[in-house]
Each structure stands twice: as structure tokens, then as C-alpha cells.
């Protein structure tokens, strides 16, 4: 059940160093939003503030509000663990749990959270693997270790693991950057299927991928070296890539820097 995200005035610190400053945006449910921008501009940092993973880094601190369907994730009394159950994440490098089989990997989110019925696990795993387009390839070897798959399959396994807990939002931090073009295509097709069920936010270095996959695109940039990253422009993807409002966006898109 996809939810809407409203961010207002978000600033994130590493200790005393300000990494991103004053970001405000809205992400509609059941849509794909892409974050683009040069290296080091704070896209991944911002993504991690959306599921309270930023504070896992020692010294990580956030000011501002992130509303998930009108509930402030950083409000008083909010449990970060519960937030991460509702906002899932897929990382840049596939990281299946090495000691677990494929079945156990997909079921890990449910098992480790404690509230599940043993009889339902099989159905949930099958549904998640089908949702990640991996079921046909692994249905005969669910008990083999997860690390025995290829890179693209491992990343789809991680996606299956993330969607098995039925989050409201799925965050993807450069999910295809470690993969070959064919696996990348498979994952991009998967994203356009998944957006029927989840709100998806994807950070990508690859502008063509942002143009292919997303409905809205947000461009981030640093004012200068050492300055915090800022949101420069967010708009429908078509408009960003054909007729952006801000000059810096146009410069980045046409490759004058980045």
C-alpha cells in the first residue's frame, strides 16, 4: 500500500559537518522519482534520511520533517526500527546474507521481525520472488545459498527480500551500478512493474536510466566544494530533460559538468 512522502526543510549532518541543506519536496504514491546529480552532492545521504538509516552512521543527525502520509518519521516517540519496516531499501552492491539460503534470505525480513506465521512463509517467499522476476530461475533451488547467484540475480534477490515485508516505500540507492547492461534492463523493467504497488525513489548516476525509468526527477547539486548539497530542481522527467527551469540543471543534463 504505497504512501506519499512530504519532505520539508531537511538538513543532515555528519557530526558538525553539514552534508545537505534545506531540502523540501513531495513524492506521490505509486510513482518513480529519480535523484540525479554529480558525485558527492548528497543524493545518497538524502535517500538514507528517508528511512532513518542516516543516523546509523556514527555522528549522523537530521533536522527537519519527513512526512509519510502525514506522519512525521522524525517525530517524538517514533521508533526508527518501525520506520525501516515501512520504508525499505535496496543498496548499490547486492548483499544477500551469506549464511542463509535463497528462501531464508527472502524470508529474513519476516522471520527476524518476529511476527509471521510459519505456514504463510512459503507463500510470501513465492510471491516476493515472482514480484522480483526471480521465481522461475530459482524455484528449484530455494535451499541453495544466496551467494551462488549471479550479480543481477543477487540484486533481484535483495529486491525480493525488501518487498517481502510489504513496505510502503522502496528506496533504491544506485541499484544497477554494479550490474551488466542485461541485468540492468531486467531491473529497470522490474521497477516499472513494482511502481504499481510501491512508491519508489531511485538514486542514479546514469541520466539515461533516470530518463527511462522515472516519472519525476530531482536534480541535486553543491553550491561549491565544501558546501552542503541542495535540491536545485524537481519536476516531471520529460520537462527536466527537455526544458529545465534552472541553468545548472541544463548544464548538468547536457554534460557541461558532472
Amino acid at each position, binding site marked *: 500500500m504505497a504512501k506519499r512522502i512530504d519532505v520539508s526543510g531537511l538538513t543532515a549532518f555528519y557530526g558538525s559537518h553539514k552534508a545537505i541543506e534545506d531540502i523540501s519536496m513531495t513524492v506521490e504514491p505509486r510513482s518513480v522519482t529519480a535523484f540525479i546529480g554529480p558525485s558527492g552532492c548528497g543524493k545518497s545521504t538524502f535517500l538514507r534520511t528517508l*528511512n532513518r538509516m542516516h543516523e546509523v552512521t556514527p555522528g549522523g543527525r537530521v533536522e527537519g520533517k519527513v512526512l509519510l502520509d502525514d506522519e512525521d518519521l522524525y517525530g517524538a516517540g517514533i521508533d526508527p526500527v518501525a520506520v525501516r519496516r515501512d520504508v525499505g531499501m535496496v543498496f548499490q552492491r547486492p548483499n544477500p546474507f551469506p549464511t542463509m539460503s535463497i528462501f531464508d534470505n527472502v524470508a529474513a525480513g519476516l522471520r527476524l*521481525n518476529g511476527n509471521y506465521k510459519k505456514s504463510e512463509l512459503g507463500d510470501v517467499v513465492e510471491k516476493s520472488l515472482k514480484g522480483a522476476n526471480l521465481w522461475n530461475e530459482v524455484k528449484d533451488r530455494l535451499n541453495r545459498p544466496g551467494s551462488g547467484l549471479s550479480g543481477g540475480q543477487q540484486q533481484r534477490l535483495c529486491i525480493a527480500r525488501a518487498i517481502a515485508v510489504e513496505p510502503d516505500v522502496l528506496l533504491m540507492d544506485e541499484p544497477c551500478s554494479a550490474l551488466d547492461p542485461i541485468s540492468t534492463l531486467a531491473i529497470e523493467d522490474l521497477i516499472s512493474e513494482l511502481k504499481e504497488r510501491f512508491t519508489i525513489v531511485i538514486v542514479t548516476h546514469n541520466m539515461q536510466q533516470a530518463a527511462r525509468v522515472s516519472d519525476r526527477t530531482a536534480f541535486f547539486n553543491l553550491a561549491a566544494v565544501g558546501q552542503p548539497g541542495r535540491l536545485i530542481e524537481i519536476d516531471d522527467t520529460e520537462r527536466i530533460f527537455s526544458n529545465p527551469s534552472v541553468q545548472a540543471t541544463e548544464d548538468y543534463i547536457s554534460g557541461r559538468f558532472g
Partner: protein
Amino acid sequence: MSTAPVTATGAAPRTLRGARLPKWSPWAIAAGAVVVAVVLGLVADMDNPAQLGLIAAILFVLGTYGIATRVEGRRQAKDRVATSLVWVCFLLAVFPLASLLWETVRQGVKDLDFYFLSHSMGVVADTETGGGIYHAILGTLEQVGLATVVAVPVGVLTAVYLVEYGRGKLAQAVTFFVDVMTGIPSIVAGLFVLSFWILILDMGYSGFAGSLALAILMMPIVVRSTEEMLKLVPNELREASLALGVPKWRTILKVVLPTSIGGITTGIMLAVARITGETAPVLLLVWGTNFINTNPFKDPQASLPLYIYQQYANSAGYGAAYDRAWAAALTLIAIVMILNLVARGIARWKSPR
């Protein structure tokens, strides 16, 4: 080479080829060195094999350098000398180990049989033949087992704290003290337990008192090796688990520890292997006995290192007690080796595939 063109400076052009000594040349030079050393030994009336071996080694290195310089060139000669020095050092390092094993097996096999392993010294005096080490094996296994039960949970949980949670002064202090504890001499640990457990608390000599001292010796090793293994778990695994909404303690218990369990087990087994042979604390705390005592919490117990020491001390260098001491030493080495093999087996079985 005779029709090679001359370069602009008039010097002969460099060639890519070089002469090489044949493959069998190191063996030939070694054989030659040994022959010369033996001849020198005969001439100078030296027959100590260690001296002759040393002379042969020196001649080998010098001969290699000389012959290689003449045939191959300076650089190859230096390479060969470095290789031979490395080999000589390796042999020097392995020789005592091999010699120790050989001697122990040779001396220990005499008395080693099933009777020896299943009977105690209850009815046999030290000067008589017969008797066995059952009581000592039982004592060692119980004491080491109890020490493991005490030291492993404390050690592993301390390491988990240091790696996953500790950030400030307390973690630094704990690390410091663990490092200091790694260097505690075993007799100091024994004296500490003696003064505390036996003299102040008046609990009496027992296997458990020995276990306490062994646990003190074992714990820092377990902490250190577990710490290293936990640090090797990539952070992305922790993040993957946290991002699923799994609380931190469950992440540690279900993801981090299982991933590193192979290395942790190896570390624990190595710590166990080390304390199995510690004699000093056992000498002070377990007191020793000739009878079988299955209760480690009450009354003195026997122990393999203690038994070896006592038998040798009463043997004057030959006789039944001397043979029993060697056989017990062989048993002790066998136990430690089995533990090491089990550790490697577990590590391989449990390692992430």
C-alpha cells in the same frame, strides 16, 4: 651475436637472452656442499652433525652465489642466495618442531595403550610400572570444559560490545585492559585465584579453582579473536538487515554472529588448545591426586600437565614414571591436535559459501 648491428653509441646492443643454470643445479651444489663439509669434518675431527650441517649450509649459500655469478650474472646470483637463505631459515624453524614430535612419539608410544588410557594411578606407586592417566585426562577435560563455559560467553559478549556498541571511554578502557590481560603470566593468574578463592574464601583445592585461572588466561584471547572476526563482517550486511527493520540486537544475533561463527570457533579452539597445556595454575590450584575424582567442584583433581610434571619429578630421568610421563605428553599433544583439527573442520563447514 656476431652479425648484430652496432648502436649509435658504438656499444654492443642489449640482448634479451641470458644463460641459466640447469634445474638440477641447487641439488648438485647442496650435494657438493655436504661432501665438502663431511671431508672437512673428517680432516678437522668434528663429528657433531649440527656443526657439519651448519658448515654445509654456509658452503651451499657461498657456492650458489659464486657459481651463479659466474654463469648467470649478479642479479640472478643474489636472487638464488635470497631463496636459499629463506629455505635455510624455514628448515631451521621446522626442525625443532619435527624433532619434538618425533621424540615425543618415540618415547611415548612405549606405554600408550587402552589400559593406560582407562586406569588411574590409584593402586600403583610412582616407582612401579602399570597405572594410567584416566584420572588426569578426566581432570583436564573437566577443567578445560569449565573454563570454556565461563570464558567464552564473557569473551564473545565483550567483543560484541567493543565492536558493535562501544564508542567512548569505557570501550577504550576495556580494550586496554584486555590487551594487558593477554600478557598475564599463567602463574600470576594461578596466584590470584589461590589468594582469592582458596585462601580468602577458603573454598579448598579443586578442579574448579584451576578452571577459574584457566578462564582468566583464556578470556583475552577469545575477546581479541572474536573482535577481529566481527570486524571482518562487511558493514553492508548490517545495513541490509537494519534496512529491513530488524532491531540491532537481532541483527547481531542472527546476521553478524552467524556470518563470523567459523572464525570465532577457530579462535575459541585455539584458546582452548593453549590453556590445555598450562601447568602453573593447575600446579597451584588443583593439587593433583592419584585417584579418579569426577567432581571438579570438590576435592583435588588430577590434570595431564600436572601429571606429567609430577611423574617426571619422581622419576630421576628413567624408569616407569619417566615412560608414563612421555606417554602422557603424547596424549596431551594428541588432544590438542584433535581440538585444532575439529576447529578447522568447523570453520570450513560453517564458512559463508
